[in-house]
């Protein structure tokens, strides 16, 4: 392992870029492009240097405020490293998509880069305080990006977004204060170890009372549920996604929504696995409701951004379903091989789905951005039609992305969703079956979009709609290539994810 503090560098790089962008103003986009390219390269280096056994590597640990249990503690495993790579890809896509920021470009790109730093920080942190800092750090640039560059109703959307996520954060903070009071530690690996032996529960019970632990679990779940979002905490999302400028929406859905799922896997399940297992059934119901509600809601929307926003809810619902399905206590003392195989499959699927959804959803909003830019801001489904005639390349590539979102075999979403179903079916067959039928609604939504946007008569304001120019094609090609690659050879990703999955599940107690 190299002696360089890679993870600190990775987090510092975008912050540096942000400062530079702010200073340079006019050339901010070029700065942002270079910074995000470099970040992606660095994230890939981190991915290459993962320990092969799936444990946490590249650890950096320094004392910070020991009396408060606060440490500077960084490290990555297959899960966090994949999220780093995803964040870097999505930010790069977002910067690439943001061609036309005329209003204060310096500030805009500085905020985007700060957001990226926040993502990197929260995906590498192993101490609650440190993690929480970056979790909040993401929130502030996101708020201003919506508030300052958003659509006509950006004010209420930004406020709603902020209040919801802050409420979630407050729940998280309270829960962790309670845990700190009981254990005098905020260190994730340490707390995970305590939880896996059942000691954490005893300590909390001793310090705060016997029924407190389950309430802490619910608080933490609620905090993450808002971020993902899970039904019924999703109501902030459509407004925020629709009002945010499309490149920012790419960041919100592609990367920030993963923070919620990541939090469930890094914090909620390791610490509160046992409590979550007790309320598994209602959680599964909510997850399935997220899947089904997301799909139905997408089916009735008229605004392309809202359609894709609800599709995001739907797709992340599959992640939630997979996560809650695998929270099954082992029967008896022995190791049940079949149960374990299902849990492995489900978790592999969830992690793969996080990557896939990030790329696909970001790409979809990218296309919306291009369509808005070409038509002067139109984004209603009924405002488009017949685009395949003037813009066959755009129609073809967007078609591929839409089919990826649908889960067509050969494209990236299929292996992830298949693994989730494969894992969830034996563990929770009702939830899995209902969700599979939810796929049907997704198919209707996506085909309706294809039909209304690409076929039929060409509306007047779309006459002369330019096709993708050379630069856009070049920018999209690697994204679509990645979709095909993951779709055809998921083992490229799963090879590094699977050891982490086994390592994670070995430390979780349900």
């Amino acid at each position, binding site marked *: 392992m190299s002696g360089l503090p890679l993870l600190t560098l990775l987090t510092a790089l975008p912050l540096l870029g942000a400062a530079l962008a702010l200073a340079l103003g006019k050339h901010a986009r070029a700065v942002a492009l270079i910074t995000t390219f470099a970040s992606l390269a660095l994230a890939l280096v981190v991915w290459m240097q993962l320990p092969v056994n799936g444990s946490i590597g590249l650890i950096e640990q320094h004392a910070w405020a020991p009396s408060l249990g606060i440490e500077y503690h960084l490290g990555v495993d297959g899960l966090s490293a994949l999220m780093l790579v995803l964040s870097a890809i999505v930010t790069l896509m977002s910067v690439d998509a943001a061609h036309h920021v005329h209003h204060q470009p310096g500030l805009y790109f500085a905020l985007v880069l700060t957001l990226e730093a926040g993502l990197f920080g929260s995906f590498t942190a192993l101490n609650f305080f440190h993690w929480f800092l970056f979790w909040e750090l993401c929130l502030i640039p996101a708020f201003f990006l919506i508030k300052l560059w958003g659509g006509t109703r950006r004010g209420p959307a930004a406020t709603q977004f902020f209040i919801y996520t802050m409420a979630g954060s407050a729940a998280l903070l309270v829960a962790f204060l309670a845990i700190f009071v009981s254990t005098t530690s905020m260190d994730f690996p340490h707390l995970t170890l305590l939880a896996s032996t059942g000691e954490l529960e005893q300590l909390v019970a001793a310090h705060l009372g016997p029924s407190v632990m389950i309430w802490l679990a619910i608080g933490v779940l609620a905090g993450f549920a808002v971020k993902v979002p899970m039904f019924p905490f999703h109501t902030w999302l459509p407004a925020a996604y629709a009002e945010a400028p499309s490149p920012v929406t790419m960041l919100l859905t592609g990367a920030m929504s993963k923070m919620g799922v990541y939090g469930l896997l890094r914090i909620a399940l390791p610490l509160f696995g046992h409590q979550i297992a007790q309320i598994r059934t209602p959680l599964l119901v909510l997850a399935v409701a997220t899947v089904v509600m997301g799909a139905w809601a997408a089916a009735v929307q008229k605004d392309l951004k809202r359609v894709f926003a609800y599709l995001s809810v739907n797709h992340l619902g599959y992640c939630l379903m997979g996560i809650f399905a695998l929270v099954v206590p082992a029967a008896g003392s022995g190791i049940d091989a079949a149960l374990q195989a299902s849990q492995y499959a489900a978790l592999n699927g969830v992690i793969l789905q996080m990557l896939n959804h990030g790329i696909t959803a970001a790409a979809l909003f990218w296309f919306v951005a291009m369509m808005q830019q070409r038509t002067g801001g139109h984004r209603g489904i009924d405002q488009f039609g017949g685009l395949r005639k003037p813009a066959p390349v755009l129609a073809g590539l967007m078609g591929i992305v839409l089919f990826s979102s649908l889960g*067509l075999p050969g494209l990236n979403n299929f292996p992830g969703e298949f693994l989730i179903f494969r894992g969830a079916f034996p563990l929770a067959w009702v939830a899995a079956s209902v969700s599979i039928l939810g796929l*049907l609604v997704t198919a209707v939504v996506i085909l309706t979009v294809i039909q209304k946007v690409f076929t039929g008569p060409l509306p007047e304001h779309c006459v002369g709609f330019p096709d993708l120019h050379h630069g856009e094609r070049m920018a999209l090609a690697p994204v679509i290539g990645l979709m095909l690659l993951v779709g055809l050879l998921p083992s490229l990703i799963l090879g590094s994810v699977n050891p982490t999955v086994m390592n994670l599940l070995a430390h979780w107690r349900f």
Partner: protein
Amino acid sequence: MFSILHPNSVSLLAWTIYLSFAGAVLLALMPRGKPALSRWLALAFAVAGLALAVQGFVVGMGQGRVTLVDLVWVPSMGIRFLLAADGISRVLVLLTGLAAVAGVLFSWNIDLRTNEFFAFYFALIGAVYGVFLSFDLFLLFVFYEIAIVPKYFLIAIWGSTRREYAAMKLVIYSFAGSAMVLIGLLAAYTTAGSHSTGLVELAHAGLPISFQLWCFPLVFTGFAILAGMWPFHTWAPTGHVAAPTAASMLLAGVVMKLGAYGCLRVGIALFPRGLDPWGFSFIGIGSWRGVFALLALVGIVYGALAALAQSDFKFVIGYSSVSHMGFVLLGLMTLNQIGVTGAVLQMFSHGIIAGLLFAIVGRIVYVRTHTRQLAELETMHLSKRMPFAAAAFVVAGMASIGLPGFSGFVAELQVLIGAWKVNHWWVAAAGIGLVVSVAYIWRAMQKAFFSDLLPSAHVLEQEHNHAFAAITWPEVTGVVLLVGVSLFVGLYPKILLDAIDPAVKTLLAGGVQ
């Protein structure tokens, strides 16, 4: 793996898949302004596929199941890229090859974005080859899903009557079916506790009877939706009618066979005990076998009656497909050697004949008359003005009603013999369907070609003023190819039966005791 390079090997059959997908990609990249180039390229790919299929069929004669390619794909789940062929696969691959060539010939007039049309066309063909050659359930499912997308675009872009509605309906039905299949696939994989999704491994996994009793109907129905089983058939007539001619030929000719093939290869082979009696009976039906046989019979009779009542020529053929596919499903439900063999032969036979009928109605006649309404065709004296089409339809119609000498006769006879062994009433009900099928073909033939509603002098004048375009060489070639195959198989069915018979025997022995 390197056996694929051996020139005289059965494994060449796997190249039907690769070649078709390569053709799809190549055609998608062709320049748009050169339709003739795209056409010839498409024909070359289709003929190459047919040549591979014929070669595979000939080399495979007398052989059982032969593995073509076996590569590890997703090791943690035991998913393999496993292609293999037994007699049933070889016959259906041959059918696909024939249908592909005929489809290209009857699409010779497509001028709208020709290269894209053929790109979708070959994506569909490649997926169909893939389904017929997959011996890994996961792989089969993947190809089955891939086949859905090009169908959608073929209908939605190049279709006619209410094409967007029809395309969407077809896709939703297909996805609903595949969702059911996916649930069954996952349930079987989990219950078997095996670490393989291979069809052979799953068939030998000894799935519990109680499990098979619920999983069988789920998977069977999922596949049967695509086979046009009543009451899930409604996508078929609208889809067939809206589709451009080549796509209707493929839909009726091959895609419906995908469903029937799935019913046999997955439904019956993996869950044979799902057909066992329930132990009680309800209105005389005591097992899923009874249920599906009843649905098949309703489909046979209903499809025929509906065909008799249509005013649109293409709808007549669309409903006749539902009726003929009922024979396939009935044959499968006999579960005996002769009945199931007949079902597979009927898949082949119907694929050829339905393709021919759609080609005549949708291409040869429609392109010249610009109508498919029987009432309007009645005034046109087509037998005089278009003798080739009339003659072709007479032959195709005779083949369709199962006249001895054509492939349909052998196939339906076998199904009926098989059915007789199980339940006499099945034969009686199917017989009604056969009688009605004579009636609807006769009615359509009479109205479309041989009516003398208007005095012939008037028609001759019409002919003089608006002469129809001459029959083109692709049309003649296509008709001759399909009629020839149907006649050849009708006169010498042994050539296919020798391949199907042992494969069915193995399949039934592995399942039904």
